């Protein structure tokens, strides 16, 4: 069994379990059998908004220092699932999460875990660039200041902006409003702001959907570059983007229940991005990727 796509739970024969990747002839990459370092694990995660089940029984691993893309039709619960990974869903009234999410082996939903601490380790970049109406400097320094950091802020701000490939463009106008930047620059500012808190997982929900192709490419390059240091989970509607940047891709779909009249998001499969795009196990994946469905 390919160690990258298998966990103990893969053997679980529960009928509701999502269809997962099966063994297939080893591709060139599969030949590399070094053990994967699992950073975040989802186990039978379901999210409800009140009585409505948005996603059901999702289980997969997120590998350390790699980029995992979540793709699927609108409304299949990608954003919902992403928000459960750093407990942002706790803030949505009526949202409840079941199952477990472990980060470095620890359950982030355990009673003694402070959601604020989770969000400091697992950062988030949103679909719409949302810098604070403050200076560029204050935007980046915001997170560190929350923890009372005062010394070394200048270096931290510079380092974070450099990491987000924005430093050269803004180094002479750090005191200008973050809102004075272009959309692409604002999004990189938001990435810098997330980096400054020193997380090791960064969640990005359609980070390029409000950007033009050139700004998008810059962010994609940035993501690839960042993957050496960070574990990245990205939601995208752009198949090419998923193919270009991600190491692994998870495909979700909407499961219609005509009896109960509801639509629930389920994980169809997750695998190496190449495999998903060229040799998907489930016909629904191939249908979606080639544009025949969804």
């Amino acid at each position, binding site marked *: 069994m390919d160690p990258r796509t298998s966990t103990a739970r893969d053997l679980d024969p529960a009928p509701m379990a999502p269809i997962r990747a099966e063994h297939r002839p080893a591709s060139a990459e599969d030949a590399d059998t070094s053990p994967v370092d699992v950073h975040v694990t989802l186990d039978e995660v379901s999210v409800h908004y009140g009585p409505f089940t948005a996603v059901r029984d999702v289980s997969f691993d997120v590998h350390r220092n790699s980029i995992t893309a979540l793709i699927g039709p609108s409304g299949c619960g990608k954003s919902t699932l992403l928000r459960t990974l750093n407990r*942002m869903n706790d*803030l949505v009234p009526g949202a409840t999460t079941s199952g477990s999410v472990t980060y470095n082996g620890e359950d982030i939903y355990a009673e003694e875990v402070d959601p604020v*601490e989770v*969000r400091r380790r697992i*950062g*988030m970049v949103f679909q719409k660039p949302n810098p*604070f109406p403050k200076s560029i400097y204050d935007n980046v320094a915001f997170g560190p200041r*929350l923890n009372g950091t005062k010394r070394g802020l200048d270096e931290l701000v510079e380092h974070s902006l450099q990491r987000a490939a924005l430093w050269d463009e803004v180094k002479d106008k750090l005191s200008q409003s973050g809102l004075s930047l272009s959309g692409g620059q604002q999004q990189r500012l938001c990435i810098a702001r997330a980096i400054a808190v020193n997380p090791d997982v960064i969640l990005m929900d359609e980070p390029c959907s409000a950007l033009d192709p050139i700004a998008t490419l810059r962010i994609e390059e940035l993501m690839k570059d960042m993957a050496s240091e960070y574990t990245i989970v990205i939601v995208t509607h752009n198949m090419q983007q998923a193919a270009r940047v991600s190491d692994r891709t998870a495909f979700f779909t909407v499961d219609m229940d005509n009896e109960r009249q509801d639509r629930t998001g389920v994980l169809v499969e997750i695998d190496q991005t190449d495999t998903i795009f060229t040799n998907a196990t489930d016909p629904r994946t191939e249908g979606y990727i080639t544009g025949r469905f969804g």
Partner: protein
Amino acid sequence: MSVDTPVRPDPEAGDRPSLTVTTPNARRRALISRIMSGALFLAVMAAVTPLAILLWQTLSNGWGPFSWEFLTTIEPLSYRETGGGYLHGIVGTLYMTGVAALISVPLGLAAAVYLTERPKGRYASIVRFFTDVMTGVPSVFVGLAVYALLVSGSGGLGLGFGTLAGAASLAIIMLPIVVRSSEEMLRLVPGDLKQAAYGLGARQWQATFKVTLPAAAPGLTTGVILAVARGAGETAPLILTALGAREVVLRLTGAPQADIGLLMLDGFRQPFEGGIERAWAGGFTLILITLGLSIIARMIARRSQI
């Protein structure tokens, strides 16, 4: 590959509907539109005229007696005498308005933050109900209530007439305005910003104090200043709380306090030229204060980034 010669439409040919031929009832619609515009213009004029007359009256009558002397001296003992001024009233009005703002602004902001952070909180509907009711209470009655609670020695705290009692009644009048306008301003702060703050590991109070309040600051300031201006112009609630004085009073309690509006009331009630002139100048001063505050408020509002 063939290159097509473009065929340009000929408007004279008449084979396509021309732009100059209008639809059947276009004339009627144009006429109705013109009548409506005229009616709206008249309505706007009707609304603005009283304000214009009021301003004109105050300016034309108040400008003459208004002077440096008016701002820096107190009223002579007799209403018959001309000259002198409302220094004591101006001090009293600013003093009481200031103290009232110190009481009502923090309380009002706190209530507004509560209402926006916990819109379905246990006390939210109670707070909303009381602010609604308080906006409608006649201001004389506010004065009466403060008299009974603070001023009167029988049943109240027995503080007596003075700055604090006057300020308390003004604060009660300002409070619901501060709460309502601040709540609206806080609601305007995009949820994105709060999400971003939480995403960076902010606690609720940190998100409120470091993101929501600063982002709403210009709007909040505007609302607060307008509420203060509203309070500064109030006279009725002060009749039973500040009572009025004929000299500059700096004490917070223990001595009745003067107020521009109260002095005007006294001045206009006497049949003497001197007192009436000063009352007009007092009205002019009051309009300057409230207008000045409103202009400052608008200027701050324009700097808002959200």
